[in-house]
């Protein structure tokens, strides 16, 4: 797909635009941070922006928007296990019957 020089020339514009968009999003994240939103909201906003930026890098710079099925397959598998890895341990820790032994209170109100 990208091997043909004329095609590549066309995508150069896209690369520049995506680069610019990424910088804009970075600015938005920083500004949003200055607003001192409530923590859960701040996390949501920051993560949404990060995911957007990440997808743009992956889709455009890494050409994931038009890849071969083997690569999609491998990445899909990876993403499934990534989700398991990110969330199952914390779910298990939270499902534990033990309580933390700690002098200071409010363990779970931390965020």
């Amino acid at each position: 797909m990208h091997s043909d020089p004329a095609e590549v020339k066309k995508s150069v514009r896209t690369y520049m635009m995506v680069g610019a968009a990424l910088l804009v999003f970075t600015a938005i994240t920083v500004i949003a941070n200055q607003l001192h939103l409530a923590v859960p909201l701040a996390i949501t906003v920051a993560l949404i922006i990060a995911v957007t930026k990440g997808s743009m890098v992956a889709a455009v710079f890494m050409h994931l928007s038009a890849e071969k099925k083997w690569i999609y397959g491998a990445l899909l598998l990876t993403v499934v296990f990534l989700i398991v890895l990110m969330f199952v341990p914390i779910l298990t820790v939270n499902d534990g019957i033990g309580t933390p032994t700690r002098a200071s209170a409010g363990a779970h109100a931390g965020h």
Partner: protein
Amino acid sequence: MEIPYIVETRPDTGLHNGKLGIWLFLASEVMLFGALFSTYIILRVGAPEWPHGELSVLLGAINTVILISSSVTMVMAWASLKMNDWGTHRLYLVATFALAALFLVNKYFEYSEHLGKGEGPWHSTFFAIYFTLTGLHGLHIVGGMVVMAYLLGPGAKMWKKNPDQFANRIEATGLYWHFVDLVWIFLFPVLYLL
């Protein structure tokens, strides 16, 4: 028999070997950083309190801009190669290398400030995870710089002999580099802002 599909793509998969290889490598990297993010979640949820505003958002934002720009120069290095523009390619690759170096310089100042204040990894779980995540990410930057230096130096000879294979190498380097950028895109909000 020579090893097939080093340069040309295998018809039924549409891939050359290096392309699949680098993506598999990135898949393992996803799991590596995933484990560290999982660590972050568990430590943070379990922490009595989590510090805010310990890191300089300005420096972090500058580094984000640097890395994003380096991603653009990297993709342009590849694109110019594809358009047979060797000179522009070299220029962009040098720019990418320079931006990577700039990132590290910035990081160096950040690190030395914290270490100077005694806020090393031993200070708290926050700094532990900060140094581990950014340190590992920094190592990835260094690794990318080594590869770029090779492609700028001795590795560049291949362009004459086998331009397609050279372009594949640049593409693989690019994929890796964008991934390093992508990790930072998550590290920045997670460590500096939240």
